C-alpha cells in the first residue's frame, strides 16, 4: 500500500513530468512561433503548418501541470501564483494571442493575416520569456528583490533561447528546401545562446544557494551528479559539430539535433529537480508541508494511473499520423 509520504513524492514526480513534457512540447511550438520570418509569408504558412495538429494537446500539459500543483499542493499553488501574479497574467495573454492567431490568421481577410502573424510571434515571445522569468523567481525562492529580478530576466532570456533552439530543431526535421537551410542556421545560433544560458543560470544558482552548492560538490553523490553537466557539455559539442555537416549531400540524421534538444531539456530539468527536492518552493516549503489530504490524492491517482498511459498512447498515435514533412494544412 502506498503510504501518505510516498503519495507526495509520486505527485511531485507527476508534476515534474508534466512541466518537462510541457517545456519540450509547447517549447518547440513556441520556438517556431518566435522564429516566424515576418518578410516571408509562404515560410510562415509552412512553419505554422508543422505545428498545427499538435499545439492544442501540447498546451494541455500546462493545464495538467498547473492542475497537479493545484490538486496536490494547493498552498504552493496559491503562494506561487499570488507572487507571480503579473508575470503569469502576461504569460497567459501571450498564450491567448498565440493560440487564437493560429485560427484567425487562416480565416480573416488577406490584409489582416500579417497582423495575426505579428500577434502569433509576439504572443509566443511573451509567453516564453514570462515562463523563464517565472522560473527564475521560483528558483530564487519566490523572492522579488533587485538581484532576484536580474536573475529572473537572465532566466527569461535563457528559456526563450532554449525554446527557440528546440523550435529550430523541429523545423529542421519537418521542413524542406530553403526553409530547412534557414532552420539549420537558426539551430546553430540558438544552440550557443542556449548553452550560454544554461551555464549562466547554473553558475548563478550555485553562487546564491549555499545548500545547493554543497549538495552538488560535497555530498557522496557528487561524482554521480557530475554526469549531468558533463553530458550537457558533451551534447552541446556534438550538436555544434554535427549541425554544419547536415544537409550537405543528403538528409540523413536531421532528427539528431531535435533528439539532442530533448535530452538537454531532460538534463537541465533534472539538474534543477535534484537541487531542490524535496522542496516544492525552494528553501521554503517541502512537498510534505503542502500536500493535500491523502484520500483526495488516492482518488485522483487511481484515475491518473489508468488514464496517463492512454494519453501517451494516443499522443504517440497522433504524432505518427502526422509523421514526415509538414504539408499544407487543410481541413478535409
Amino acid at each position, binding site marked *: 500500500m502506498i503510504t501518505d509520504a510516498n503519495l507526495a513524492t509520486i505527485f511531485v514526480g507527476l508534476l515534474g513530468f508534466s512541466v518537462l513534457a510541457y517545456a519540450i512540447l509547447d517549447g518547440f511550438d513556441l520556438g517556431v512561433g518566435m522564429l516566424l520570418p515576418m518578410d516571408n509569408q509562404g515560410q510562415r504558412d509552412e512553419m505554422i503548418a508543422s505545428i498545427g495538429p499538435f499545439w492544442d494537446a501540447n498546451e494541455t500539459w500546462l*493545464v495538467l501541470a498547473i492542475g497537479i500543483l493545484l490538486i496536490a499542493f494547493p498552498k504552493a499553488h496559491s503562494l506561487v501564483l499570488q507572487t507571480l501574479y503579473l508575470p503569469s497574467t502576461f504569460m*497567459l495573454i501571450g498564450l491567448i494571442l498565440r493560440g487564437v492567431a493560429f485560427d484567425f490568421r487562416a480565416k480573416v*481577410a488577406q490584409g489582416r493575416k500579417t497582423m495575426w502573424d505579428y500577434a502569433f510571434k509576439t504572443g509566443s515571445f511573451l509567453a516564453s520569456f514570462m515562463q523563464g522569468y517565472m522560473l527564475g523567481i521560483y528558483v530564487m525562492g519566490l523572492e522579488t528583490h533587485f538581484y532576484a529580478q536580474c536573475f529572473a530576466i537572465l532566466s527569461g532570456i535563457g528559456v526563450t533561447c532554449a525554446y527557440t533552439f528546440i523550435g529550430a530543431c523541429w523545423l529542421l526535421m519537418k521542413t524542406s528546401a530553403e526553409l530547412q537551410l534557414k532552420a539549420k542556421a537558426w539551430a546553430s545560433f540558438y544552440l550557443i545562446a542556449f548553452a550560454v544560458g544554461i551555464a549562466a543560470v547554473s553558475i548563478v544558482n550555485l553562487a546564491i544557494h549555499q545548500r545547493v552548492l554543497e549538495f552538488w560538490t560535497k555530498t557522496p553523490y557528487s561524482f554521480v551528479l557530475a554526469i549531468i553537466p558533463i553530458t550537457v557539455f558533451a551534447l552541446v559539442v556534438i550538436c555544434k559539430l554535427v549541425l554544419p555537416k547536415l544537409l550537405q549531400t543528403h538528409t540523413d540524421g536531421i532528427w539528431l539535433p531535435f533528439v539532442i534538444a530533448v535530452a538537454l531539456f531532460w538534463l537541465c530539468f533534472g539538474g534543477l529537480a535534484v537541487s531542490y527536492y524535496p522542496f516544492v518552493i525552494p528553501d521554503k516549503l517541502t512537498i510534505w508541508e503542502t500536500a493535500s489530504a491523502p484520500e483526495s490524492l488516492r482518488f485522483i491517482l487511481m484515475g491518473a494511473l489508468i488514464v496517463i498511459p492512454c494519453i501517451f498512447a494516443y499522443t504517440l498515435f497522433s504524432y505518427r499520423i502526422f509523421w514526415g514533412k509538414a504539408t499544407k494544412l487543410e*481541413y478535409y
Partner: protein
Amino acid sequence: MTDVLMLSRAQFGLNISFHILFPTITIALGWFLFYFKLRANLSKHPVWMRVYRFWVRIFALTFALGIVSGITMSFQFGSNWPGFMEKVGNIAGPLLGYEVLTAFFLEATFLGIMLFGIHRVPNWLHTLATLVVAIGTTLSAFWILALNSWMHTPQGFEMIDGVAHAVDWNAIIFNPSFPYRLIHVLLASGLTASFLIAGISAYRIKHDDQKKAPSIALRASLYVAAVLIPLQILAGDMHGLNTLEHQPQKVAAMEGVWETKQGAPLLLFAIPDENERENKFEIGIPKGASFILTHEWDGEIKGLNEFIGEHPPVAAVFFSFRLMLGIGVMMLITAWLASSYLLRKKHLPPRVINLCIWMTFSGWMATLAGWYVTEVGRQPYLVSGVLTTEEAVTQIPSGNVALSLALYTLLYSGLLIAYIRTLFLMARRAVEIEEYQADEHPKHKKKLNLDTATGGAA
C-alpha cells in the same frame, strides 16, 4: 480588501463569461459535426461533406478560443481565490484533475486528427476522431458541472480543522443539483449551437447563396432546436424545483418574493429595491409563482425575509432570470414557426430568415443570463454554507488585479469582435464558392480546390 474582492469578482466573472461562450457552442457543435459526418458516410452525398467542412472550421476557431480562455481560469483559482483551494481543494482538485485527464487531452489530441488528418487516416478513423472529440467536450462538461453543482449543493464531505475532506466521492459527484444542472446546460449548448447554425445559414441564404448546403444545415438545426426547446423548458422547470428545495433564497430572489407568502404572484415585471426590501412597479399574475413552484394556487413561498444577510443581491438575479425566460420564449417561437414553414414548404419566407439571423447569438445571451441567475444566486457564498466569497479572496495588491482586469477586458473585447466578424466573413466567402460536384466525397480522394474559396489552410 473590498477593492480586491470586487476587482477579483469582476475579473473572474469576465473570464468565465467570455470562456463559457465557446464551450457552450463546441459541446453541441461537436455532436452536430459527428451527425454531418455520419450522414456524409451513409449517403455518400457530397453536400453533407460541404456542411461538415464549413462547420468544422468554425468549430476549430471556437475551440481555440475556448481553450485559451479556459487556461486562465486554472491560474485564477490560486492567484485570486486562494481560500477556495485551501478550504475545499480536497474536493475541487480531483474533480478538476479528472476533467484535464479524461477530457482535455482526449479532445485536444483527436481534434488534430479531425481537423488535419482526413487524408492521412482511413475515413472510419476520421469519423471516430470526430466522435471522440464530441465525447471529450461532453465529458469536460460533466466534470466541471459536477464541481459547480457541488459548490451549490455540497455533500459527501466532513470538515476537519476547517478544511473539507472527502468522505463519499459518489455523493460528491452526484450531488442533488448535478443531474438537473448537467441536463440544463447540455440542452442549452444544443440550443446555442442550433441557433448559431441556423443564423449563419440563414445569413448565407439571405446573401443569395443558392447552394444546397446552407439549406440543409438550416433545416437540420431548426428541427433540432424545435425539439430541444420544449425539453429545455421542462428541464429548466425541474431544475427550478430542485433549487427551491436546496437553495430557497435563490428562488425567492428569482421571483422577487420579499416576504414569505401564500399564493405569491408570478411577476412579469418589477424593480426590486434592496434598501426598502420591496418591489416597485409590480406587474404580475396573481398566485402564479406559487402555482409553478408548488403546483398549488395557495402554496407557500419562502421570502427573502427568512434569509437576511444570507441571500444574493436581488435585482441582478431577478432581471437575469427574466432575460433568460424571455429569450427562451423567443427561441420557442422562432424554432416552431420556422419548422412549421419548413414542414409545409421548401423555403423560408424572408421575414423568417431575418428572424433566424437575429437569433444567431440568442443561445449566448440565454446561457449568460442563466449563469448569472445561478452563480449570483449562490452569493454571498462561494460554496453554499461552507465558504463565503469574501473569505476566499486573495490578499494581493488591488492595483495588480485592476491592471490584469483592464488587460483582459481589452483583449477579450477585441477577440469577441474579431470572432463575430470572422464568422460572418466566412459565411460571405462561402456564398461565393461553386456548388458541389458529384465526385467530391473524400472517398474519391480527389482534392477540389475548395480551400482557396473558403479561406485556405488551418
